[in-house]
């Protein structure tokens, strides 16, 4: 996650977060598809995570107001959280955000939201067990679980891949032992 060259970290940084500007910004309209224009105070724009976090911690002038305020990204909106609370396994995380967990973790470093943390860690546990079941399925992971597996986020995909490859390697090793004699 922290590596400079980690592609997933870069993609996480590129995820859009809604933020609201608190000041008028001249000549910054290109951020709001209004090239050459100004940004008025109270405009809501979705900006990449790397930019919005920098703007949100920047304090300007004697008033010490931040340049913009951040909101939680739509991938952890209340609607999504309710769906995750109801059944974590039916939610298509990939369509919400490619790097759902990492993006959420980055946002939660900035927000104090105990409830979201609880919901997300419960989600991960429930889904990890489900992922393991699909990965160990010797008849191949595609079949009844294809819909679920399509909805895995990047981290879960790596988890699935590790579990699947290792169980395959184990079967191969045991099968090879049988062949030797």
């Amino acid at each position, binding site marked *: 996650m922290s590596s400079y060259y*980690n592609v997933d970290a870069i993609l996480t940084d590129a995820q859009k977060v809604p933020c609201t500007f608190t000041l008028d910004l001249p000549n910054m309209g290109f951020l709001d598809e209004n090239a050459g224009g100004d940004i008025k105070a109270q405009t809501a724009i979705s900006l990449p995570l790397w930019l919005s976090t920098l703007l949100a911690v920047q304090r300007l002038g004697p008033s010490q107001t931040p340049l913009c305020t951040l909101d939680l990204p739509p991938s952890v909106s209340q609607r999504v959280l309710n769906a995750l609370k109801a059944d974590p396994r039916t939610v298509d995380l990939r369509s919400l955000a490619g790097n759902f967990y990492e993006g959420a973790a980055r946002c939660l470093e900035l927000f104090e939201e105990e409830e979201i943390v609880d919901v997300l860690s419960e989600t991960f*546990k429930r889904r990890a067990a489900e992922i393991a*079941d699909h990965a160990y399925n010797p008849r191949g992971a595609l079949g009844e679980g294809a819909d679920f597996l399509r909805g895995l986020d990047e981290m879960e995909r790596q988890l699935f891949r*590790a579990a699947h*490859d290792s169980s395959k390697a184990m079967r191969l090793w045991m099968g090879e*032992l049988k062949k030797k*004699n």
Partner: protein
Amino acid sequence: MALPLPAGLTPPETAFLCEMELVTIIPRQRLEKLNLLGGPTPPFAPPHRTATPLWLALLLKRQRRANILPPPWLSPRSLSSVLDLEKSTASFSPPPALPPHTTTSPPFLPSATAGAPPDALPYHWLELGEMLLEAASDDIPEPDNVRRLMRDLREVRMAKMRAGVGVLEGGREVNLNGVGGGWR
């Protein structure tokens, strides 16, 4: 991440490490000691039991120059008692007790020789059991029974590990004591 190398040890690598485990053999031929990189092998004098590394034992077994004495825990009686223990508790069956003042770790513990403690699964039980069943099934009493019990044990322990994911949380942990090295 860009490298397609698998993270950690692959099963053949784990099996390779396991081949350093000492097993007891009954040689059928005399053999003077060989000075190898890993240390000298013991001299073989036919009717006497000798402890050798597993790789040498398997080699001699394939050439029909030795018989392997399976470790006591690789018997149907011992395995089924471990299986009963596994089924009755939520945790894993404990590893064999270490002799006092032990400073080494597997594969350098004598956990697979004829003098190993029964009724407890050592670190390399899965790999060692599989390899012995494949190469020396005629030296093991009731090999089919042993094979079935090994598979049952593996499945019981896999199910426990899967259930362990559910209780993972900051501050709480799953006790993996007694889990061998072949767990993938």
